């Protein structure tokens, strides 16, 4: 008697373990679902909505949708990919993304996803937000222009580094990344180059200084193969944190 339960993803059977979400099971089984804010080492967040799939006549973000036996999930359809393309376009229009002059070009998940989904234009009027960079730190540059608000650095800093260097403030279209210092400058935080938060940025916000072009364009991660191929190799990874922030929750228990 087999204990393995399965659901259907685009007609193929996907096995899953209890507690897994649809994207976790799919990636583990070698099936790619496009995603941005989901990271295999962190608890699913569900904010970018790029991983949205169709279940029956409803839609849901596959990173937070619990896998259930018998689900019939539709992902690789024109309808879902059209939606994803629009969401990626929205992110391009929202921030200031100038790929040709960006040192993250070729290593950027947003750019790679754009190529993979066939995004040809931003599709929307650019918002051109005014977002000054923070170059205060001797070894790190923060270029907020490229922030897609995935909160990976927030989560990594809180859950893995135990520092809560990053947080979000503002609301709606004014939502923005802040750092944990009264001056609002990165140099006044306890961030370290070895922090998980520094390594996890999928786009070009958190950058190490003086190494931007050590790896030449053309020889970068997504120059070799598209993000859809690499995400699968990345997928089976142990969680980096337990989805909790020791610093914040200790305070709550009081």
């Amino acid at each position: 008697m087999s204990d393995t339960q399965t659901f259907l993803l685009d007609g193929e059977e996907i096995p899953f373990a209890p507690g897994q979400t649809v994207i976790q099971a799919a990636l583990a089984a070698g099936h790619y679902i496009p995603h941005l804010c989901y990271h295999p080492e962190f608890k699913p967040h569900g904010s970018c909505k790029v991983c949205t799939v169709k279940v029956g006549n409803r839609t849901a973000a596959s990173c937070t949708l619990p896998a259930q036996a018998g689900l019939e999930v539709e992902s690789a359809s024109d309808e879902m990919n059209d939606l994803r393309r629009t969401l990626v376009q929205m992110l391009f229009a929202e921030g200031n993304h100038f790929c040709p002059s960006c040192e993250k070009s070729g290593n950027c998940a947003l750019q790679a996803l754009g190529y993979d989904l066939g995004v040809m234009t931003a599709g929307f009027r650019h918002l051109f937000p005014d977002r000054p960079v923070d170059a205060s730190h001797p070894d790190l540059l923060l270029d907020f222009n490229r922030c897609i608000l995935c909160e990976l650095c927030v989560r990594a800093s809180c859950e893995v580094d135990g520092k809560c260097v990053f947080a979000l403030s503002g609301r709606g279209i004014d939502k923005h990344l802040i750092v944990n210092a009264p001056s609002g400058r990165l140099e006044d935080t306890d961030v370290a180059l070895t922090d998980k938060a520094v390594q996890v940025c999928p786009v070009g916000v958190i950058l190490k200084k003086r190494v931007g072009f050590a790896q030449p364009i053309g020889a970068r991660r997504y120059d070799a193969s598209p993000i859809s191929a690499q995400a699968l190799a990345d997928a089976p990874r142990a969680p980096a944190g337990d989805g909790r922030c020791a610093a914040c929750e200790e305070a709550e228990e009081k």
Partner: protein
Amino acid sequence: MPEQTELREVLAAIVQRHAGAPTRLLQVLRDVQDVRGWIEPEAIALLGDLLGLPAARVEGVAGFYSFLRTDRPARYHILFSDNITDRMRGNTALLDYLCGKLLVERGHVSEDGLVRVDFTSCTGLCDQGPGLLVNGWAIPNTNIERLDCIAQLVLDQAPVTEWPADLFSIQDNIRRRDILLGHDLQPGDALRAAVARGSESAAEAAANARSWREANIAAPQGPLAVLDEIKRAGLRGRGGAGFTTGLKWEACRNASGPMRYVVCNADEGEPGTFKDRVLLSGYADLVFEGMTVCAYAIGAGQGFLYLRGEYRHLLAPLEETLARRRAAGLLGKDIAGLKGFDFDIQIHLGAGAYVCGEESALIESLEGKRGIPRNRPPYPVTHGYLQRPTTVNNVETFCAAALIAAKGGDWYRVIGTAKSAGTKVLSVSGDCARPGIYEYPFGTPVRQVLADCGAVNTQAVQISGPSGVCIAADEFDRRIAFEDLPTAGAFMVFDQSRDMFQVARNFAHFFAHESCGFCTPCRVGTTMLKATMDKIAAGHGTPYDLAEIEKLDRVLHQSAHCGLGHTACNPTLDTLRRFRPTYEKRLKSLDFEPAFDLDGALARARRMTGRDDAGAHLSTEATE
């Protein structure tokens, strides 16, 4: 630094008042703003220290709520309600008038740090608008005379507590009563009836057990009997979604956890809705009684009432009602003489965030966080406040629950329609002779409400606010009921003189302002919708833009995180479907028009040079 020490003392006293609990962060920040006029950067760092939270998290919460200011202090924060009904009563001209009197630019603190004047989302005074908030205190019926008075008080720097009381006098305007608004219950009646509903053996078991809660499990007839009545009544949630209340209570009762909670959602933010304000001002006992009945049925030990910041004036009277009920043994320990039935209610004040009306965002806010809707499942009935089982219901739902506890499910069931039992309290505003509160049995046609409120030449009615539906004259025979026109209570009337495009545009601005920004489609999509509506309003729209609106609607329905995003395009699409000519007459007869507005791009240069004459504008084609 003596100033720093002084600030620390002020903050420490406030934090102390809230028992140093991080869950009270929003309440702490409200108090700090009251004392300091804003949340200054030094206060954020100190509060983090005092509460044991990262300062960035304190800043994130302060930055989320509209009523909390982190930019500059002002002694007076004056906010004009900007619902469409306020617009129809001339709020824009009134705001300009006050800005002129006080010599300030809208949205900017005056040079001397005295005053800031701006718009805010609907404040729930649509039947006596335009509404106004001064440091959070509501003023109805704004007009020139009142603004003259207010301007003088501001210039004299009179404390708001000393302003003439008649400025703040708010009417209930109850126009039609039915079983709820016409109820004859005394405080405690429903609760005693609920307890008595248990068989005698249950009461005996409870008396013999160490506590009522223990008996609750061993011999649960009492609470189960109440649950049974609620189910038999067919009561559905009055917040708009219409979930079956009995099932919600039962799921929460059956969930395991160290503590269960009852939360009353009084974050009545839907533009055009104000019935909860009236229920909380005139029927507070009934609301608290319903919450206590719920606590009895599900075995909860703590309750919260989440009161929207705009209803700050109700806080003191509500606290008085709570104190009275405690003194009468209807709250606190051994309620109604039942050993171990311990339950109390705490009031939590919001600070200007419509999204907190969504139950999981409301719970986040209760926990002292940014009001972001959670991922679901799990649902609040199993993982709510502090991840514990929590029942969240609307103000009116608790009132109905109290009535049912007193009079029984069968009595309630026969009122209304088969699928919508009971009555609905409507907040009627807009173009009608008698705006105010109307209670009707479910199944009442829109036409009757219009006749009763004295509406003539009605062009359209927005049912249940911007996130509801807009109906035209040929649909006025439709009925207020979950199976036809479900509603959280808003009923905004527009006569033939109104421009329905501008109505939809006002709502598009509302959603963009209130999007929490968590998910991509809502954060960006509501902004794009607003920009498209503004483009059409400016005479630059094309058929392409109308297609774009339909695309945005599709994206938001498919992928937004919560109801706010799902419904954000509804008012635009509803009016586009029913009143298309009002859109089309604005369009340029072109297939495509670039979104880039060259004249608009010169606005900054005009501001810098202080010019706004015709010569500073590009000549635009005369629109026929």
